[in-house]
C-alpha cells in the first residue's frame, strides 16, 4: 500500500504546492487585476492564462518527479496534482462563502470568487475539477512527448499568450503600416486576439519551430562551414541591419513606445556599468544608485539656473558629472577594498542610503534642493537640434549605449578585463598571480561609476529635474535584477534583461503594483533554476554546464558501483 502511495505522493505534494500558488495569486489580487485583459477575445482572459500556466507548471513538476517511468503513473500523478489544486481553490471558495475574508485580505472580493468559479458561483464551481485536471493532464502529456514536439507546443503557446498580452503594443504599430493594418485587424480585436488570429498564430509558430528543430542544425553547421571571411561578412551585415533598425525605430513606434525605449536604454547604460562591477569583477554593489544620483545631481547643479551656481550647458556639464562619478566611485571604493561578498553588499547599500538621506535632508538643502529636488535643467542640444521629445532623447541614449557597449566590449578581453575576471573567480589566487587588487578593484568601481554617472546626467536632462525620491535603493535592486536575469558578465544579457524587466513592465503599466513582486520572484526563480541568466556569458554557461556533466558522471558512477 505504501509502495503505491510513494508513486502518487508527488502528485499530491505538487498539487498542494499548486493550490498554494493559485490561492496566493488570487489573494494577492493578481487574478482580479488580470481579468480585465483578454488573450483571445471573449474566450480566454489573462487571469485564466495566469492560473492555467501555474497549473501546467505544477502538473509538469508532478510528472517530472514521478518515481515510476511508466507513462500511466506519470499521467496519474499529473492528474492528481490538478485535482488537488482544484480542491484547494474550492476550499478557498467555501471558506470565502462562510466567513468574510475581505476584512483581512482586501482582494478576497465577490468578483474574485466569481472569476475563480467560472462566473456562476457554486453552480459552475464543479467545472474546477474538470478544467484544472485537464491543464495538468496536458502538462503530463507534454512531459511524455518527444523534446521537439514539446518545444513546439511551449513556443507556440507562449507566442499566442505573449501576442495577446502585448496587443496594445502590436496592434497600433502594425496599423501604421498600411497593408499590414488589415492583417492586424484580422488578428487583433480591441482587447486580445481574435479566435482565427490566435489559431493562425499558433499554427504558424508551430510550423516554424518544427521546421527549425528539423533543419536548424543544418543551418548552424552551414554557417560554421563558411570560410571565416564569409562568417565575418554575414555577422557584420547582421549588425548593420540591427543598427539601421535601431536608428529608425522611434520613427516607427511613436511617442509612447519611444519613451519606453528611452527608459530601457537608461537601464542598459546603468546595467552595463553595474555589469563591470558585479559581472566582471564580482563585487556585489547594492549602493550603485548613488553614482546615478551623483551624475544626475552634478548635472543639475552645474546647469540649472534655479540654484544659479554655474548655468553651464549640458555638454559642458557632462564631463564634470562623469568625472565626479569616477571620483566618488574610487572614494567609496577605498574603504571597502578589503571586504568581500555579503559584507561588501551591505556596506555599499549603506553608502547608497547615506547619500540619499544626505540629499533629502534640510541640512544640505541650499546646495542640493532637499526633498523638492532641482528643476529647470536645460535640454541638451547640438547645433540647434534640441533633444526634447522622447524620440529625440532616444538618439542621445542610443549614442550613450553605443559608447558604453563599445567600451565594455573592448574592456572585456583586455588585460584589465581578464584581471577582473581572475579576481572574480578567486581573489587570493589573482593576487598571487601578480594582479594589483587595489588598483584593479578601484578601476572597476571607477568605471562602473562613470557609466552610472553618464546615465544619471542623461536622466537629469531627460526629465529636466531631479528628485531624491527617484534615487532610492529600489533602483539599485532593479539594476541588479536586470544583470542577473540577463546573465552576469554578458553584454547582450544586460540588454535582454533590461528589455524584459524594464520594458515589459512599462508596457503593462496597469499591473505596476505587481512589478516588484515579479522582480523578487524572478530573482529567486532564476537563482534556483537558471543561475547563469537568460543570455549567459560563454564562460559561465560552460561553468554551469560542467557541473551538470559532473553530476551525470557521479550518477553513473554510483549506478555502476
Amino acid at each position: 500500500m505504501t509502495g503505491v502511495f510513494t508513486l502518487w505522493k508527488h502528485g499530491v505534494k505538487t498539487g498542494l504546492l499548486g493550490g498554494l500558488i493559485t490561492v496566493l495569486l488570487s489573494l494577492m489580487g493578481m487574478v482580479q487585476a488580470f481579468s480585465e485583459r483578454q488573450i483571445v477575445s471573449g474566450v480566454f482572459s489573462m487571469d485564466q492564462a495566469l492560473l492555467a500556466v501555474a497549473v501546467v507548471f505544477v502538473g509538469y513538476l508532478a510528472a517530472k518527479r514521478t518515481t515510476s517511468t511508466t507513462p500511466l503513473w506519470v499521467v496519474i500523478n499529473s492528474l492528481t496534482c490538478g485535482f488537488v489544486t482544484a480542491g484547494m481553490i474550492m476550499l478557498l471558495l467555501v471558506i470565502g462563502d462562510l466567513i468574510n475574508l475581505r476584512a483581512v485580505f482586501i482582494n478576497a472580493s465577490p468578483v474574485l470568487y466569481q472569476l475563480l468559479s467560472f462566473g456562476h458561483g457554486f453552480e459552475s464551481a464543479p467545472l474546477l475539477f474538470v478544467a484544472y485536471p485537464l491543464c495538468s493532464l496536458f502538462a503530463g502529456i507534454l512531459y511524455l512527448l518527444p523534446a521537439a514536439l514539446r518545444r513546439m507546443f511551449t513556443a507556440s503557446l507562449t507566442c499566442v499568450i505573449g501576442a495577446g498580452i502585448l496587443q496594445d503594443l502590436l496592434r497600433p504599430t502594425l496599423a501604421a503600416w498600411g497593408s499590414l493594418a488589415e492583417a492586424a485587424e484580422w488578428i487583433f480585436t480591441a482587447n486580445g486576439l481574435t479566435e482565427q488570429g490566435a489559431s493562425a498564430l499558433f499554427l504558424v509558430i508551430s510550423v516554424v519551430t518544427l521546421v527549425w528543430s528539423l533543419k536548424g542544425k543544418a543551418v548552424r553547421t552551414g554557417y560554421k562551414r563558411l570560410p571565416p571571411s564569409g562568417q565575418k561578412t554575414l555577422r557584420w551585415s547582421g549588425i548593420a541591419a540591427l543598427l539601421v533598425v535601431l536608428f529608425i525605430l522611434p520613427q516607427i513606434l511613436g511617442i509612447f513606445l519611444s519613451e519606453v525605449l528611452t527608459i530601457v536604454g537608461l537601464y542598459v547604460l546603468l546595467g552595463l556599468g553595474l555589469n563591470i562591477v558585479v559581472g566582471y569583477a564580482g563585487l556585489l554593489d547594492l549602493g550603485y544608485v548613488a553614482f546615478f544620483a551623483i551624475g544626475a545631481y552634478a548635472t543639475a547643479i552645474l546647469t540649472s539656473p534655479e540654484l544659479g551656481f554655474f548655468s553651464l550647458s549640458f555638454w559642458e556639464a557632462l564631463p564634470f558629472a562623469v568625472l565626479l562619478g569616477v571620483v566618488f566611485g574610487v572614494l567609496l571604493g577605498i574603504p571597502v577594498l578589503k571586504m568581500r561578498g555579503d559584507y561588501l553588499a551591505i556596506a555599499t547599500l549603506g553608502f547608497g542610503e547615506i547619500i540619499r538621506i544626505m540629499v533629502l535632508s534640510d541640512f544640505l538643502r541650499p546646495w542640493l534642493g532637499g526633498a523638492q529636488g532641482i528643476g529647470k535643467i536645460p535640454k541638451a542640444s547640438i547645433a540647434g537640434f534640441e533633444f526634447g521629445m522622447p524620440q529625440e532623447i532616444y538618439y542621445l541614449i542610443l549614442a550613450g549605449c553605443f559608447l558604453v557597449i563599445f567600451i565594455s566590449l573592448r574592456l572585456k578581453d583586455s588585460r584589465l578585463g581578464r584581471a577582473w575576471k581572475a579576481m572574480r573567480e578567486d581573489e587570493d589566487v589573482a593576487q598571487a598571480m601578480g594582479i594589483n587588487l587595489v588598483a584593479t578593484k578601484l578601476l572597476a568601481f571607477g568605471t562602473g561609476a562613470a557609466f552610472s554617472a553618464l546615465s544619471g546626467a542623461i536622466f537629469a536632462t531627460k526629465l529636466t529635474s531631479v528628485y531624491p525620491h527617484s534615487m532610492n535603493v529600489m533602483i539599485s535592486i532593479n539594476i541588479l535584477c536586470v544583470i542577473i536575469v540577463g546573465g552576469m558578465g554578458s553584454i547582450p544579457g544586460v540588454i535582454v534583461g533590461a528589455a524584459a524587466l524594464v520594458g515589459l513592465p512599462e508596457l503593462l503599466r496597469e499591473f505596476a503594483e505587481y512589478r516588484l513582486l515579479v522582480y523578487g520572484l524572478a530573482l529567486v526563480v532564476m537563482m534556483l533554476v537558471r543561475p547563469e541568466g537568460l543570455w549567459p556569458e560563454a564562460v559561465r554557461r560552460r561553468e554551469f554546464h560542467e557541473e551538470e556533466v559532473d553530476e551525470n558522471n557521479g550518477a553513473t558512477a554510483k549506478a555502476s558501483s
Partner: protein
Amino acid sequence: MLKGWKERVTGTDLVMWLIAAAILGVVLAGSVATLWSGRYEGRHWFDFIVFGLAQGSIYALIAMGYTMVYGVLRMINFAHSEVFMSGPYTAYYVAAAFYQSGFLESHPFLCMVVVFLVSMATSTLIAYLLERIAYRPLRNAPRLIPLITAIGASFFLQYMFRGFYGPGFQAYPVIKALEGPWTFWGLRILKYQVLVIVAAALFMYALYAFIQRTRVGKAIRAVSEDKEASYLMGIDVDKMISTTFIIGGAAAGAAGVLYAIMFKQVHFFMGFIPGIKAFTAAVLGGIGNIPGAMLGGIFLGIIESIGPSLFLDGLGIVAPYQLKDAIAFIMLVLVLIFRPTGIMGERVAVKKA
C-alpha cells in the same frame, strides 16, 4: 619597531585614517559644542536613553535572527526584515478585532498574549517556508547566489503582503493600560517603553537560555561551529537549520509587535529600515555571536537616539533628526571597515566572506 613604517603604510591606509579622524573630529566637536550650549538638560538625556534602550532592544531581538542564521549558514538572510514585518502586520487584524469588540480594554493582558502568539506564529511560518523553498536548494551554491535569492525573496514577500493587506498604513490600536507615564524618583518613564524593554529582555533571556541550555540549542551551536562534524555526530543538520530559522522568526515576530506598540502603525515596507539596523547591530556585536547581537542592538538604539542631538545639534546642523538613519548607516559602514569582527570580538571568522 617604527622602522620601515613607510613600506607598511599604503595610500589606502592613509585615506582610511583620514576618514576615521574626520568622523571622530565631527563627533567630538559636535558633542562638546552641544554640551557647552546647555540646550538639553539631564531630563532630556534620560528620555533619549530610555527611548534608545527601548528601540535598541527591538533591534537586538531582530538581530538575533540575523546572527543565528549567519552562524549556521554563513549567509545574510536579507529577507529577515520581511519575516519581521509579516508577524505584526498579520496580528494587526487580531488586535483590531479585539479593539472593536472592546475585549482589548477589558482584558489587555490576555489580548496582548494572543497578539504576540499570532505574530510569532506568522513570522515563524514565513521564516520556515523561506528556508524550505528558497534557501535549502541552494545549500552548496556559490556564495553570491543565496544572497541574491534572499534579496529577491525579500521583495517578493513585501509585495505579497502588500497584495494581501493593501498598500496603506494601518494604525495599531492603542492600549489604554499602556498610556501615560510612571514616575520613579522624579523621573518620568512612558509605560509602553517599560513594557517594550521588559518584554524584549524576557524574550532575549528565553532565547539565550534555549540556545545555551537545551539539547536543540546545543545542536544548533554545534552546526554553526562545524556543519560536517556535527553531521557525523548524528545531528540532523537540515533540521537544525530549519529550527534556527524558526527561532529567529519567533524572535522577529515578537520584536514586530513591540515595534508596533512603540510606533503604533504597520505597513508592508516597515521591515526594511529596522531590518538593516538590526543587521548593523548584529555586525556591531560580531556576527554569529548571540550576546553580541543583544549588546550591539542596544548600543545602536542608544547611539541613534542621542546621536542627532549630541553630535549634530552642536554643529548648527538644521533638523538633525532627519539624519538619524544616516548615523546608523555610517556606524554600519564604519564597523564593517574598521572592525568587521564586531565590538565583542569574533567567534565566527569572516575568512572567505
